[in-house]
């Protein structure tokens, strides 16, 4: 799977850290630092000292491990969710196409979902035991959650909303035990504030990052308006439930079907066990909030799907329990095999056969495989230059994820427009500037066209090393 634009941007930020610059939170153009801090020690241990040393599999190892960690967090929700229901939930979380697909993307979403589950799980443990250690753990998870991505505020608001709805529905007239509860909550909030402050301030190296994190809410509000990613409110349900060119959405269909059974079952037992009701309401509120916001990307759906998978697990458990007769076990095994097969077939097609195909609903503005041909062409041209490595000039603003694919080039520079005097023997231009670049370069240059993303093209200009007729210096 080619490296996505967002992964390339993240890699550039990590590359700066590897070269010795500390992470500095930018409220306009960056998400929080936790993903980079989680990745940095791993890639350093693997020997990386710059972006040029990084390989895609090293970066993608992180979300894969985080995704496995998400499965482990399910244990926190016992006994409100019985082990058999949690195992069924693990089917979707471990095998469902959206989870596997974005579990291979080195972006913030899998980490965000993991931290959400940790927060909910630790909070649930605190609610059951009133032990302050759980409250502090929940606070640390909340702090890390806040420092992962701005959308964490929506997660926290949805959780609070679900709690407000759940308490009167499930525990009417109940009064919280006062002793130690307020103190535990206060300690949790303090832990959250401390953790997020430490992370946003780059562990004290950039105190201004804390204020920037608050300012980021203004920018996030603007971004929620769409910024080119506007979709109708039904977009998430369409991504989840509509058949695509490349596969039927078995994950979405099974989650919906078993989730409805699970929701009904949870409602029936709401007085005995309120957590499943909370989880279902939380999933629905997250989906409603994200659907109401014009800005939509398919990976945001994970935030609603993950808690809903717990409800689907209850539904699956309920269906299995309803099976009667001598063939009960055989039928249950057949059901497990059937759901597993359906999930695996969709995941295989979307994640491994057509991962970057425009007909794949999970592939949002994917990098075109053609970029590997461009990478190979540039590397070939660079190697032809021998000891006098040619300068590669990249022209334009919409050139991502080229910085990732050109990370091995020794002399590469990026310009918004073709500079007057680059001594470049290889020029890559965004399509919109290709005519101007072609004119500026003059005769004697060959050009080839390559795809960066669907409908986003770039032109490669090249000539033999030493024949460049334009200028001398790069930036």
């Amino acid at each position, binding site marked *: 799977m080619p490296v996505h634009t*967002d992964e390339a941007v993240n890699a550039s930020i990590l590359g700066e850290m590897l070269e010795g610059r500390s992470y500095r939170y930018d409220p306009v153009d960056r998400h929080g630092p936790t993903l980079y801090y989680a990745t940095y020690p791993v890639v350093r241990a693997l020997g990386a000292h710059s972006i040029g040393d990084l390989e895609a599999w090293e970066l993608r190892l992180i979300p894969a491990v985080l995704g496995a960690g998400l499965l482990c967090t399910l244990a926190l929700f016992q006994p409100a969710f019985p082990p058999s229901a949690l195992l069924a939930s693990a089917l979707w979380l471990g095998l469902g196409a959206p989870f596997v697909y974005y579990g291979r993307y080195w972006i913030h979403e899998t980490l965000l979902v993991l931290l959400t589950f940790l927060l909910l799980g630790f909070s649930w443990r605190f609610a059951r035991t009133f032990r302050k250690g759980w409250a502090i753990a929940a606070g640390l998870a909340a702090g890390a959650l806040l420092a992962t991505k701005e959308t964490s505020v929506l997660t926290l608001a949805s959780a609070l909303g679900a709690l407000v709805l759940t308490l009167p529905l499930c525990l009417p007239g109940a009064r919280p035990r006062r002793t130690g509860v307020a103190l535990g909550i206060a300690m949790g909030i303090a832990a959250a504030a401390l953790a997020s402050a430490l992370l946003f301030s780059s562990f004290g190296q950039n105190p201004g990052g804390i204020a920037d994190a608050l300012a980021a809410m203004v920018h996030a509000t603007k971004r929620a308006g769409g910024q080119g990613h506007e979709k109708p409110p039904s977009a998430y349900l369409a991504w989840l439930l509509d058949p695509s060119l490349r596969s039927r959405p078995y994950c979405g269909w099974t989650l919906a079907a078993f989730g409805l059974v699970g929701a009904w079952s949870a409602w029936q037992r709401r007085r005995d066990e309120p957590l499943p009701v909370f989880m279902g309401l939380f999933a629905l509120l997250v989906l409603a909030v994200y659907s109401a916001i014009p800005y939509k990307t398919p990976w945001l759906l994970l935030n609603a799907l993950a808690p809903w998978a717990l409800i689907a697990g209850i539904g699956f458990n309920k269906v299995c329990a309803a099976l009667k007769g001598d063939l009960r076990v055989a039928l249950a095994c057949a059901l497990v095999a059937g759901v597993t097969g359906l999930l695996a077939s969709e995941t295989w097609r979307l994640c491994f056969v057509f991962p970057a*195909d425009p007909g794949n609903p999970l592939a949002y503005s994917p990098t075109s495989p*053609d970029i590997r041909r461009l990478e190979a062409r540039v590397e070939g041209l660079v190697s032809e230059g021998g000891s006098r490595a040619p300068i590669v000039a990249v022209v334009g603003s919409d050139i991502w994820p080229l910085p990732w694919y050109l990370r091995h080039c020794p002399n590469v520079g990026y310009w918004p427009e073709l500079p007057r005097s680059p001594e470049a023997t290889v020029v890559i231009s965004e*399509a*919109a500037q290709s005519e101007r670049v072609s004119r500026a370069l003059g005769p004697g240059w*060959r050009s080839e066209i390559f795809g960066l993303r669907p*409908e*986003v093209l770039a032109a490669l200009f090249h000539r033999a090393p030493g024949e460049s007729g334009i200028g001398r210096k790069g930036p």
Partner: protein
Amino acid sequence: MPTPTPSKINALFRATFLAIASLSLGLPPAAHAEDLVPLKLDLPRPMFVGTPVPVKLPNLEAPRAGRRSDFMVPKGVVNLALNKKVTSSDMEPVLGDLTLITDGEKAGDEGNYVELGKGKQWVQIDLTKAYKLYAIVVWHFHSQARAYKAVAVQVSNDPDFATGVETLFNSDDQNVLGFGAGKDPTYIETYEGRIIDAKGDSARYVRLYSSGNTTSEMNHYIEVEVYGLP
């Protein structure tokens, strides 16, 4: 996080559209000028629109202003490929089937194109007997701005294309196909299709090659028309 936005996509979409709209071939076929008439094509509706931005690259089609120039063919030419048998290097297409290539339907919607596997692939049309050919028109895919790689068109009377092969078009400048580096320009697909001059060559078989495109590694065909005198 600068996830590429549709507005940016649209900008480059527009940027490429003039290049797309640059299929101005006015090459006269081998016939007497007084017998020539413009080739009339039944074009599908455009699948994408945008304000064209000039894109000029030395070996990408030059921008064209206005409608495509008439392509002159002898009076009486017909589409000899309609409903003719198609074979391929990929006889089990990923999407659709090979009959779509000569079924006369050129709309760019889903269900109207055949998708062949990754990398170098070809399709071959058997016209059932040799005809004098004047134009071959190919629609690979036109619901999105994309260029197909290593496009080559050959005609022959040998079904194996081992002998008597005439190459009519070759944009394979990296010689992926092994026919030598092609000199024809890469072009961006549109609803107008690509007209290739068949030069009045006599042939029974038409073979079209490609090796992926700028968006994916797959190969697509909506329709191929072969114009000649019956």
